[in-house]
């Protein structure tokens, strides 16, 4: 009876709760990553445009020497919901890079300046070359990195901020560094950021945490380029559904009142 209903409801809710608990429980084994109040969090979250542009600068000047982003094209930098560089800026950015094209009429490959429609140029021709050049550790492609790591943006930010002196007694091999937040506390990438390594074109002070934040924002966008559209559309859809549900509920009550009142 009533008891059954409450009970079943409790069970149902606890089922949903458990689903979320899985994700929570597993991340608790590790050190909790730093939490940042990202502008893109929450149901109305948007990217900070200036931060995205700075983040792109950090990526090209610091990360891009080892990490590819082969799912992105230069045109993406000018698209809505992203860093939103102007059309001319995007063309200028693309033109900085040389891409291989061809074969031409003679059958030879040739290089030409990149166009907005070209994919981001990778630092290495293939995974093997990248692995060999980095002491046997492949620097992962960063296009969807934020979605490919448990903890997402917070985790990436934490790793960038997590370089420390190793605790006493911990032996580290050559080319292995201590990082508080990295899975297993060992990382094969040396600390990439240092104060002022980038000089921001908009004059922002390039502290390590500022750069880490900017580049993480950029990587979050690159992993989920339609995040802003998704949030906006989602709000509309849910409001619409709620209104529709209320209308249908009232109609249902109306219809069933005939049945409920008949003997």
């Amino acid at each position: 009876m009533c008891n059954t209903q409450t009970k079943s409801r409790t069970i149902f809710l606890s089922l949903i709760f458990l689903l979320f608990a899985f994700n929570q429980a597993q991340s608790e084994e590790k050190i909790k990553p730093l939490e940042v109040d990202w502008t893109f969090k929450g149901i109305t979250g948007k990217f900070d445009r200036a931060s995205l542009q700075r983040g792109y600068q950090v990526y090209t000047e610091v990360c891009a020497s080892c990490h590819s982003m082969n799912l992105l094209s230069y045109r993406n930098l000018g698209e809505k919901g992203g860093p939103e560089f102007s059309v001319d800026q995007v063309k200028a950015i693309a033109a900085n890079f040389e891409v291989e094209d061809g074969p031409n009429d003679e059958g030879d490959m040739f290089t030409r300046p990149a166009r907005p429609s070209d994919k981001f140029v990778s630092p290495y021709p293939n995974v093997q070359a990248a692995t060999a050049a980095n002491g046997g550790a492949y620097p992962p492609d960063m296009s969807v990195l934020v979605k490919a790591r448990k903890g997402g943006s917070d985790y990436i930010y934490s790793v960038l901020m997590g370089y420390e002196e190793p605790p006493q007694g911990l032996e580290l091999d050559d080319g292995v560094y201590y990082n508080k937040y990295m899975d297993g506390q060992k990382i094969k990438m040396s600390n990439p950021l240092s104060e002022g390594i980038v000089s921001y074109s908009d004059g922002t002070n390039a502290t390590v945490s500022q750069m880490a934040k900017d580049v993480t924002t950029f990587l979050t966008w690159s992993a989920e380029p339609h995040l802003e559209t998704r949030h906006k559309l989602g709000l509309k859809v849910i409001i619409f559904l709620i209104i529709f549900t209320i209308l249908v509920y009232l109609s249902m009550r109306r219809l069933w009142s005939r049945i409920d009142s008949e003997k």
Partner: protein
Amino acid sequence: MSENYVPSSKFGKWFNDRLPLLTLSKHLTDYPTPKNLNYWWTFGGILTFCLISQIITGIVLGMHYVAHADMAFNSIEHIMRDVNYGWLIRYIHSNGASMFFLAVYIHIFRSLFYGSYKSPREIIWILGMLIYLLMMATAFMGYVLPWGQMSFWGATVITNLFSAIPLVGESITNWLWGGFAVDNPTLTRFFSLHYLFPFLILGLVVLHIWALHVPGNNNPVGIDIKKPSKDTVPFHPYITIKDLFALLVFMIIFSGFIFFAPNILGHSDNYIEANPLVTPKHIVPEWYLLPFYAILRSVPDKLGGVILLFASIFILIALPWLDSSKVRSAIFRPVYKIFFWILVIDVLALGYVGAMPAEGLYLLVARVATIYYFAHFLIILPILSRIEKTEPVPLSITEPVLGGMPKTEMIRSDKKNV
């Protein structure tokens, strides 16, 4: 009655004499349905929606997806980035699978609670179980298609289950793979079958509904009712609007996942492209398969684990004969009701430990829960259905006996009647 239905228009009559579609639609709208169905009964409609939604979004994704080991991962990202509304359609499809299973589990447990699998509805139940089996196969193969790390290693682990079969195990796995490991041939055949199976499910759903329309719906009180009578209402508009209302509430939750937490039910490792050289630290199936995964891992023997895994599913098919109680609804079975809830908790516990590493306390819980799962069906139910003292069952929905009220709305409407 709809069987003698004659369309009013001349053309309608001409057409209906040759293909009785109008008779069918008349049957579907008039179909006498118990009027005391509660919201647990709306999941049939919700599941139909889920299936159609998965088929439509799946066909759309198939227009852009490339089933090739070198291109699958990038083609999914192409869908997410470049295709107009591709991200939306893909998130509907991937989260839709989870919602589909959420709904099917509620639907199954509804049936367990109210005894809907009992005579004369055994065939409906068996068809439902076949649908569920096909759903698991389809979902598993669909999860392989993005060709991420979890796709690849999930496929490897699950297909390796068959290697436990004595003598022919290796031949079977090689046959499944089309090679000596999960690779491109595996991906392309999984894509082909993933496209096919939903239509088989659709066919079984038609049979499932057909079989349902012979005896008619069970109901919360679990008694046979006269149709049509005071106890029934026409399916349309009374049940359709109720189903629609429940569906909309379901869609609000669904939308919450799609738009605001689209990856929460997935696994981050699946955004790393498949790499046959590196296994992820924890291989976990999608949440809806976790209870079975826990059963598999609870047995220290390879073949034993596989046998138990399949037994846990096939045992359900025999359920109508394991439980011989004449009373259907748990409302009038005070002891069964308790065991029902223990089973729910047991399955949830299996799901929980399925997500955890198979060691220490988790393993112990998994073993106890597995034993209980089988004990519930093989020992408790057969004995209980013979010795349980059930409560008196009402003669009809409109004239319930004391204590037989399944639904608060009913109490309200009856108070009005008094």
